[in-house]
């Protein structure tokens, strides 16, 4: 993981690509082994090799090929992205946030409450407000164990697990009493206002017909363009032609303004004319873009900022962090808060974009929080690696039903495969042994052959 980049050259890009391939090889091998071993287990339990084949064909068909299969895989991947970013963020600061599930619930209930509390706000205000509230809820839930660790040294694993149970029961109480929709026969919260919903892809053209919504989207696009242009301005080739800081500023602001204005003017008519998501039952929602943005944001925060530098130093070597004058307690609380906030947003996406009632039902079975630990490990805590890893887990979750239907193999086999992936990722030594990958000399030197005490 690098926090700074050298001046890009051809060899540099080559090195980066090689490094990426190297980073990818381990997870890919782990996935491969997991599926192979999964097939063996299916064969043994069902008594025929063909069952495994049928099961995997069903899995692939369910995850990608059948109507809305791909969309549903993405729908499942969205909360996974947020939740596993939350876990990975903790990892980077040396913290194991097992409380993502609880923070997810808190985020969900906050989103449901704030989403239903206002009925006449425009989306441009309401949607950011709901998401910020969910993030805040999750952040508070994460900050409590963080604070306890910073102040007393109480281990975050134990406290986050306990906070999970508090969260479950608290949400149960809120849903069935305070926030309960008295009209509906099901125990669930009041439906959130349409302005708080995460738009389904199919509804985007209709939503954009409202100029305020179009303005909202244009602002977000301008913001994204601004950051993109700023990064671009730092690359060697472009920064050479922008020889003064002023021209660099003009370049970035210009690009941001241009893309904002263009999307405000062009997006509504364009989406009305050509839009690939016409299927009304397609549940894919714009949380997808939010998830992508969150991954990029986390990458930036961790690798390009002083905050990230501090958190990573605390995670990699707390003694050195203390030596360098970094406030460890503050870093821990901050890391847990950001982690909790991401988990909270994961909960919000489920309520605002996926649940059919656009509310939080009492029986809101998620499990995203725990799967996300596996995803974060699979991605080795890398913010951008989490995107493909989440998609894989989303696809597995989504393809499981058709797999069961086709082959009669229980869909719990998916959990088994996930567990195997995790096992192979968590035990690199096994994979190395199986594939005879060469151990790097640095690792040989570091491997504690013998440990002692004294001095």
């Amino acid at each position, binding site marked *: 993981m690098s926090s700074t980049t050298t001046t890009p050259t051809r060899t540099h890009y080559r090195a980066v690509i090689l490094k990426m391939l190297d980073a990818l090889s381990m997870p890919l091998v782990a996935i491969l082994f997991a599926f192979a071993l999964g097939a063996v287990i299916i064969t043994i339990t069902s008594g025929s090799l063909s069952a495994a084949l049928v099961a995997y064909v069903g899995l692939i068909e369910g995850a990608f090929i059948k109507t809305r299969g791909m969309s549903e895989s993405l729908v499942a991947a969205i909360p996974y992205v947020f939740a596993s970013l939350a876990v990975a963020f903790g990892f980077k600061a040396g913290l194991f946030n097992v409380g993502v599930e609880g923070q997810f619930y808190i985020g969900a209930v906050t989103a449901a409450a704030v989403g239903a509390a206002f009925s006449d706000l425009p989306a441009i205000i309401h949607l950011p407000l709901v998401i910020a509230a969910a993030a805040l809820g999750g952040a508070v839930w994460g900050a409590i164990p963080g604070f306890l660790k910073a102040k007393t040294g109480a281990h975050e694993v134990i406290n986050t697990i306990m906070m999970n149970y508090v969260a479950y029961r608290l949400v149960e109480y809120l849903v069935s009493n305070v926030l309960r929709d008295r009209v509906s026969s099901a125990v669930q919260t009041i439906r959130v206002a349409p302005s708080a919903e995460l738009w389904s892809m199919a509804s985007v053209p209709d939503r954009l017909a409202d100029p305020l919504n179009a303005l909202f989207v244009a602002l977000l696009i301008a913001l994204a363009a601004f950051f993109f242009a700023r990064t671009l301005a730092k690359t060697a080739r472009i920064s050479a032609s922008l020889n003064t800081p002023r021209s660099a500023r003009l370049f970035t602001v210009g690009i941001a303004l241009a893309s904002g204005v263009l999307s405000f003017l062009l997006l509504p008519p364009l989406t009305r004319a050509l839009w690939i998501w016409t299927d009304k039952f397609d549940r894919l929602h714009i949380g997808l873009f939010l998830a992508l943005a969150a991954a990029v944001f986390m990458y930036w925060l961790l690798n390009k900022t002083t905050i990230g530098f501090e958190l990573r130093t605390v995670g*990699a070597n707390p003694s050195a962090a203390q030596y360098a004058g970094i406030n460890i307690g503050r870093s821990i609380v901050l890391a847990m808060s950001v982690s909790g906030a991401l988990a909270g947003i994961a909960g919000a996406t489920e309520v605002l974009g996926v649940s059919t009632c656009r509310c939080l039902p009492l029986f809101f079975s998620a499990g995203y929080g725990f799967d996300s630990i596996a995803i974060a490990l699979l991605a080795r805590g890398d913010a951008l690696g989490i995107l493909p890893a989440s998609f894989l887990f989303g696809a597995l979750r989504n393809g499981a039903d058709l797999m069961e239907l086709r082959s009669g193999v229980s869909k719990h086999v998916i959990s088994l495969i996930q567990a195997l992936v995790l096992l192979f990722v968590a035990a690199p030594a096994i994979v190395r042994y199986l594939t005879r990958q060469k151990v790097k000399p640095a690792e040989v030197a570091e491997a504690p052959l013998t440990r002692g005490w004294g001095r």
Partner: protein
Amino acid sequence: MTFALEANGITKKFPGVLANDNVQFDLQRGEIHGLLGENGAGKTTLMNILYGLYQPDAGEIFLNAQSTQITSPHDAIAQGIGMVHQHFMLVPPLTVTENIILGQESLYSSTKFLGRLAVLDRKSAAARIRELSHQYGLDIDPDATVKDLPVGAQQRVEIVKALYRDADILILDEPTAVLTPQEADDLFGIMKSMAQQGHSLIFITHKLREMFAVTDRVSVMRNGKMVGTVAPKEATSEMLAEMMVGRKVILQIDKSAAHPGGTILQVENLRVEDDRRTAMVDEVSFHVRAGEILGIAGVQGNGQRELVEALTGLRAPVAGKVSVLEHDVTHKPPRAVIEYGVAHVPEDRHKHGLVLTFPVADNLVLCTYYQSPFARGIEIDAAQVEREAEKLVNEFDIRTPSTRTLVGSLSGGNQQKVIVARELDRPVKLLIVNQPTRGLDVGSIEFIHRRIVEARERGTAVLLVSAELDEILSLADRIAVMYKGRILETLDAKAATREQLGLLMAGVVGGKHV
């Protein structure tokens, strides 16, 4: 003449490194054979091969003229090769006897009441330890608990452990690093008595003086190759250093007379406790002036670590006052201390000094990453960090493939250079260096010593804490000796002698033990 051990053409490759290249080594019966070499020269690899931790890619090992293979440490012990590691392999809460028989417990079964339940036979083991201890003059009480023993005694327990397992050949890996000069002399006596009784010893050290004190022959390694073997009688320090480094080495640092200026660091009646709330620094007062080096001599573990931690804000003192340039920094956090102009080269470079999993560049800005020009707002300017790293890598001759290389993969000497470069690059008023050259090769030591003296000549106040008397004697202008948390005496470096300091380090003042 029979060789107790002979290694022929030992070659060991690690990916990208030829750690041992056709190495020839022999050990005569009853000989003390010194092994000298810089870090990374291949000494440790060779010893690990002899101790069965690695298998050589090529070459042959003969024990008593018989070709053999050593497959594991267990096998090495079975074949009569013992090793005393630099870090002791003892279990602190157990007794000496228990530590020694660990893994080789002999049992007897009492059939009267308990049937086949076996009972640990401590008594005969203790008797044997007593006997060995007497035979070699080791002075070990088998019933003492290891954690209560001083470091020197723990080391002797390690030696008994090897002897108890009938080690014929004993490998001692930097055994004097943790000892006072007097304790080291005692150890040399023990080594000589073992050699006389027919044991063969391999003695690894980087202190040239010790080679002359105790060895019969010295072998020097460099870059994985055996450079040569000489008898100390026919060699000089300069010659051995040159064999080790491959070029002429200046062992004595040239420095001009000190021109001390105003007081930079003032410490008054400082008391510091360790994590177990034992007082480690007890009523210590001293000062360091601009342009002078105050050396703090003493055996490790006499409160130096806690003293330095208290001065740099890493540990809160219980009483007393620390001021830097008239600012009271007694209870200030580390960052505030750093910002007053204090630089700190910590004792443990892996624990405090570096983040091993970070690249060189990031480690070079570890204390300044948040300041201009490296940070603008909360964003880190990668280009500036890179520029700084390039500059320091050149200026301090840090040997690294690139500034993006992880610091953990550099050699110890280059790691230490990274720390020294980082700490000296700031406008520093006070430089605190704790064991700056521990475990480094001669070339790096020379380089770091020169930098410390240069800092002094620029008018920086330097506090040098070191357990190496040679280092203190060659660098310091004044020498304070620390013993059990107190400063026993502060001497002028020109007037101080090795013997005088050695006695003070052992707690002897005016002929009496304090």
